[in-house]
């Protein structure tokens, strides 16, 4: 997957995560179905980084300290938190399971787990975010900020100053 597509997927996932993390915004039913679709996005995200996962997973115990190792630990904990959140959410869900014709006797512990793992997911996303800060800012600038800036090339004085010959030709 290209970097641009990765960025689009990641930003979309981030937006959906924000919505899922606040069920008040959408109500229970949309919250549940968005979470189901989000799990598919998580799988796509993991597949797009499969080579990195396999490579760092193999070399995990070889080097004592490395940035990739820290990333791997954070990402693993994030995966566990997300899986716990999605699985417990599925067990306590009303809309999704009733669509499948299944009813579950909901227990309080699964609700607690869902709440706990959701909070943990937010924390892990913050860490994940911070550890990929450079990649994120570089590519947001490259694929979003710069193209938007190029839409208005003459509105900024720096651009005018940088291209005096071009302006003369236009005249």
């Amino acid at each position, binding site marked *: 997957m290209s970097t641009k597509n990765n960025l689009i997927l990641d930003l979309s996932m981030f937006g959906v995560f*924000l*919505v899922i*993390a*606040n*069920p*008040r*915004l*959408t*109500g*229970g039913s*949309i*919250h549940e179905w968005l979470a189901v679709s989000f799990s598919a996005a998580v*799988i796509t995200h*993991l*597949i797009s980084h*499969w080579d990195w996962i396999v490579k760092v997973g193999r070399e995990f115990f070889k080097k004592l300290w490395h940035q990739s190792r820290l990333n791997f630990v954070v990402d693993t904990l994030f*995966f*566990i938190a997300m*899986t*716990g959140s999605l*699985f*417990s959410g599925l*067990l*306590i869900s*009303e809309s999704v399971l*009733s669509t499948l*014709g*299944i*009813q*579950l*006797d*909901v*227990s*309080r*512990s*699964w*609700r*607690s*787990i869902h709440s706990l793992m959701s909070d943990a997911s*937010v*924390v892990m*996303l*913050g*860490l994940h*975010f*911070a*550890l990929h*800060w450079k990649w994120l800012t570089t590519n947001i600038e490259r694929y979003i900020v710069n193209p938007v800036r190029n839409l208005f090339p003459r509105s900024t004085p720096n651009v005018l100053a940088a291209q005096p010959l071009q302006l003369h030709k236009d005249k």
Partner: protein
Amino acid sequence: MKTILKIIAILLVASVVAGGFSLAINNTSSSSGTIEGGQLPAMTVVNDQSTTQPMAQPEGGDEVNGSIAGGLSGIFFTLVKLTGIAAIVLLLEKAFNALGNRKLSPAQR
């Protein structure tokens, strides 16, 4: 590796994690001796009238009712949390890098 195998591998790992959660909850509930506990919910099929159990009302029902104002403020607070966590990590990273550079500088001299 084919994509389908990757998906199966991811789902397998996810099911192991989910199984771990189930085991942890079952052990916790059995050790505390509570009836309500956290057992994996017994599954019933809706069409089968004889085995259908009434569904428990969710706690904090108000929380899942849609409210744009509440939801947007929730998103704002989530963003604040994420920004705070990311800022702390980035500051720590900067501090560690600065420390590393200080340790290196006498050796370089």
